[in-house]
């Protein structure tokens, strides 16, 4: 009781059993009340602690005496049984133990030499795990063709999905974040929304952006996950609790990349993609094309887009023959690029998108 005079923190009260008893069962009520009112600071803390105790009630389900006795009996039986076993083990069955030890050694060395990616397996998170853990309904797109495939999301972001890759995403992004799941490789152009961060989950790596473009390479059987940033800022982090805090997350800027080494679970940061031959080789047409146009005929701009996104664009060539544009279309997804082109051409121009086929409807430029 004396020690309570030194109580200064909420914890001091919470973890004092006699205080708990007062709140719950009004034990020693009179003298706790008197003590509380001695000091206003103290009264505040007491009141807060009381709310806490009421909020963290633990309901115990009582175990009956009969059940306890039954369990005790069972335990004695188990003890007897285990003693009989040890007796046998130590005498007659020694040779079995020896044989077992030899066998285990043989299996272990076999496993060591043949299954060298078993450690990889143990630490990995697969696309399947990720998608199964997501409770919201997802749409899955699988690219079984030999060419990159364009995917547009409900927020007007676009993704170029490479062959042998798949992606899962919700029909619309409800809630406070946008979340998609990738297996394989894709180039992402995310529409800007500062209130709704965009997350890509790929194997053990989570990539977080608000609106930028970047490439992720995360095939299931490969030893690394690579994230290559084309424009903007990207945060890449590991999808598991790592003991090594510095290995947990990496911030990337334009032309930087991060490689997550899956076996050892750490990030390697590459400061300039263009200086790294193997990484630069893995960038694609779309990253090498420029979307800065200066007084360029619009049909040429459409051609660039067709090359970059592997889509076809149908447009009234005659009506748009003499239209030239100066515009900067880097760092935005395809739907936004098209929107800006159409707006620049004039109010009577719009576009329609059907999968990989885009139709421009226009009466010419103003």
């Amino acid at each position: 009781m004396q020690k309570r005079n030194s109580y200064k923190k909420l914890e001091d009260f919470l973890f004092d059993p006699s205080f708990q008893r007062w709140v719950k069962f009004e034990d020693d009520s009179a003298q706790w009340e008197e003590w509380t009112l001695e000091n206003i600071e103290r009264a505040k803390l007491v009141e807060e602690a009381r709310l806490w105790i009421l909020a963290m009630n633990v309901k115990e389900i009582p175990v009956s005496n009969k059940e306890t006795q039954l369990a005790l009996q069972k335990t004695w039986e188990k003890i007897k049984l285990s003693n009989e076993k040890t007796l046998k083990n130590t005498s007659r069955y020694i040779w079995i133990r020896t044989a077992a030890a030899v066998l285990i050694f043989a299996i272990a060395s076999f496993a060591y030499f043949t299954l060298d990616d078993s450690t990889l397996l143990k630490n990995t998170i697969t696309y399947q795990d990720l998608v199964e853990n997501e409770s919201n309904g997802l749409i899955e797109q699988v690219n079984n063709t030999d060419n990159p495939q364009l995917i547009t999301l409900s927020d007007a972001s676009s993704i170029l999905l490479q062959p042998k890759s798949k992606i899962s995403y919700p029909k619309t992004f409800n809630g406070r974040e946008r979340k998609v799941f990738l297996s394989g490789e894709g180039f992402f152009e995310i529409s800007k929304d500062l209130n709704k961060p965009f997350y890509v989950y790929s194997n053990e790596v989570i990539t977080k952006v608000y609106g930028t473009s970047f490439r992720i390479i995360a095939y299931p059987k490969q030893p690394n996950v690579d994230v290559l940033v084309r424009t903007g800022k990207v945060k890449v982090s590991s999808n598991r609790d790592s003991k090594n805090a510095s290995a947990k997350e990496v911030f990337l800027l334009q032309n930087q990349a991060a490689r997550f080494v899956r076996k050892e679970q750490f990030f390697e940061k590459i400061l300039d993609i263009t200086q790294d031959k193997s990484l630069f080789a893995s960038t694609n047409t779309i990253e090498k094309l420029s979307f800065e146009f200066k007084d360029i005929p619009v049909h040429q701009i459409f051609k660039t887009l067709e090359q970059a996104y592997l889509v076809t664009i149908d447009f009234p060539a005659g009506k748009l023959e003499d239209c030239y544009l100066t515009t900067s279309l880097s760092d935005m997804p395809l739907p936004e690029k098209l929107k800006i082109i159409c707006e620049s051409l004039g109010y009577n121009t719009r576009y329609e998108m059907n999968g990989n086929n885009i139709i421009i409807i226009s009466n010419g430029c103003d």
Partner: protein
Amino acid sequence: MDDCLLWSQLKAGDEEAFSLLFEKYYGLLVNYGKTLNTESEIVKDCIQDVFVDIWNYRNTLNEARVVKAYLLSSVRKRIVRLHERNHIFSNTINIDSIDFLYEYSIEDRLIADETMVKSVKKINQLINSLPARQSEALYLRYHQGLTVDQVSEVLNINYQSTKNLLHRAILQLRKEFPLTVLITILSVLSTV
């Protein structure tokens, strides 16, 4: 009877002391075990196995022990080990940890006015949304009345980490809560 005395008698091979300790702690351990694994048959098995080991290896047990913390810790280890064994061959994400599943409830028989109900509900919500480990540390410290040292023994982490865990839990909750608390306090004080 005093735990320490029973413990040393047990070590000397006293079956009566063993049974007394079993009876004293079985119910409590079942309740704790169920916060880690929802299948009560498995939990009960684990607890019995812990006691089997205690009896079989009584000669090698430490003398000075806080029996309660030792039992809680042994049961926890046992459930974790079982959990790991079951998950080695299936492809699960968390193989090295189990989650504390308990949800704190509200002691509503003691709440009179409505502002208080609101505050208590809010705190309850915040407590239940704490990360599993923080929630478990809180349970052991608060509900089981263990010291920080004993909590760290049960959770198998060091003293400082445990302290941080508890501190963070409370800090985080208080950060999210201050406004409502203030209102309640004012209303309570004005009635005093």
